[in-house]
């Protein structure tokens, strides 16, 4: 398969890069001086694109690659891939579900604990020597708080399972009610927000879920509400979120994703009720390796004409 051209959209994982390099003819998109002339001269050699949450395969790229057969995403999210166009052109799409579910759910719980118990702030307090001058402030109990989950897919369910161990009553919103699920369903995000203490975004990013967290939802959450976003930045109307936090109309937030990564609104940097992470939901050694193996596994299966491991399209 060493003659098969694979375009890697951006740097994502050195193990993955090595594996791709070994097995295919790898093109590193971010190293080419001029992207359009590169595409013009290489359009007939590229049969696969490997993308991730930052860079995928939009309509423009797909159109520029007439020999493209498969887009293998190093992510479970598909919002950077033009799925409709792929379907039209018979281009296969794969992602990395399941292998990252636990990590992302772990991080959601970690963010809840970090925000409510002010873990990072307490750690800074100790390291600055302030403890010698007095105790840190009281924080907020996590056990028993009502957790509302937007999107009860693999990740949403894994978050629910963990939160239940902390005696958190679980409720959710999703496109349709799931009758087999014992958690309380709310038919709108605003209602869910009004009835929980901690709201978690765990749904895919689509046209419908863009800015699903807006001013109305933030108002419904109120000054004691805490927002946790481990989905996608554009799920949240970021300027609205920032002003709510700065004006203390919202109790706190734990955010792993932002509208324009790696840029994060600087007004959030000084807030003690906010924890900010650089999109590390699946960022563990174990999981990134598993994700990389899945990308390779899917590509090999495709080019060997075997069934794809985790096809989306």
């Amino acid at each position, binding site marked *: 398969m060493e003659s098969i051209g694979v375009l890697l959209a951006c740097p994502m994982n050195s193990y993955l890069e090595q594996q791709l390099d070994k097995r295919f003819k790898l093109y590193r998109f971010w190293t080419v001086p001029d992207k359009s002339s590169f595409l013009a001269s290489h359009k007939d050699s590229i049969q696969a694109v490997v993308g991730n949450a930052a860079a995928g395969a939009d309509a423009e790229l797909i159109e520029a690659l007439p020999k493209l057969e498969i887009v293998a995403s190093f992510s479970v999210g598909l919002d950077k891939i033009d799925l409709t166009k792929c379907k039209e052109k018979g281009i296969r799409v794969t992602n990395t579900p399941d292998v990252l579910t636990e990590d992302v759910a772990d991080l959601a719980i970690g963010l809840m604990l970090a925000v409510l118990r002010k873990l990072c702030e307490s750690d800074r307090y100790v*390291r600055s020597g302030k403890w010698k001058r007095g105790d840190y402030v009281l924080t907020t109990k996590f056990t028993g708080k009502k957790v509302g989950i937007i999107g009860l897919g693999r990740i949403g369910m894994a978050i629910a399972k963990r939160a239940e161990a902390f005696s958190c009553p679980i409720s959710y919103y999703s496109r349709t009610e799931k009758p087999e699920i014992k958690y309380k369903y709310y038919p709108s995000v605003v209602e869910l927000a009004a009835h929980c203490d901690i709201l978690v975004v765990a749904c895919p990013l689509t046209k419908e879920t863009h800015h699903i967290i807006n001013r109305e939802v933030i108002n419904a959450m109120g000054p004691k509400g805490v927002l946790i976003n481990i989905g996608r930045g554009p799920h949240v109307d970021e300027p609205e979120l920032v002003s709510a936090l700065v004006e203390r109309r919202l109790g706190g937030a734990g955010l792993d994703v932002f509208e324009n990564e790696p840029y994060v609104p600087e007004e959030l940097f000084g807030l003690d009720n906010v924890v900010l992470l650089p999109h*590390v939901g699946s960022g563990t050694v174990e999981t990134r390796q598993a994700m990389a193996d899945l990308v390779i596994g899917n590509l090999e299966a495709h080019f060997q004409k075997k069934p794809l491991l985790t096809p989306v399209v």
Partner: protein
Amino acid sequence: MNNISVLMTCPMLEYLEKQLESRFNLFKMWNLSSSKPDFFKNHSGSIKAVVGDTTVGADSNMIDSLPNLEIVASYSVGLDKIDLEKCKDKGIKVTNTPDVLTNDVADLGIGLALAVMRKICVCDQFVKSGNWINGDLGLASKFSGKSVGIVGLGRIGSAIAKRSEAFNCHISYHSRSEKPNTNYKYYSNIVDLAANCQILIVACALTEETRHIVNRKVIDALGPKGILINIGRGACVDEPELVSALLEGRLGGAGIDVFENEPNVPEELFAVENVVLVPHVGSDTEETSKAMADLVISNLEAHFKGEPLLTPVT
């Protein structure tokens, strides 16, 4: 009961102070510091109750200097700062605050484990210092599915185990004796526990037997990929050994809420990235501190009304 004299050993919670003030004749020991010898001469005979905490309890000297002491009500579940032997000898009742703080301490145990494994504090600092625009951070370690070893399977240890199970962690434990109604694997030797788990969590009471229970041997057994979480008492861990193990990379990381000499924390740890340090906040939430205070008050009132104590230490 406004004529009953109660001695509060140190500032612990404003709400508790106010409640004690409104119900009893309250003496605040930290306000008496300059005239402490005089205080004890003039008032020691009237003090019938001491309210202590994890910082200042009721040691042998204090008990000896309060001849009419009837009850020590601790604003804590830990009793290591109270001379229990002396209290027993003199028929002094002791109460603490079990159960109401179990969940908070267990939550902190899990929070620390997640913070260390997933580098949450490092990441937060990274973003807030504007460094993300220069590139990503390195990868962290997965928490789910890791083996968790708990030292002390009491209320708090069990609550930690229950939470860890939801993360598909394998649970094992060490305690003075095996507990009959659990499915968790028991190790009669703490070194064996440490050798067979990736995250070791100290959740036992501090007694003569558990002082420095986490020593060099245990730390060596835990190893360069092992993580230590301490939400028990500082003295359960040999602190200098812990510090050198972390500095030398012989231990993978640590999440510590308690230290041998609070509020002093070994400063060599401040620059260490794989360590999370918090200032003894295990039960320091608004909800729980109020519940603990209410329990202290209720125990005192019950005692002085001749009613059964709510949470006596037997």
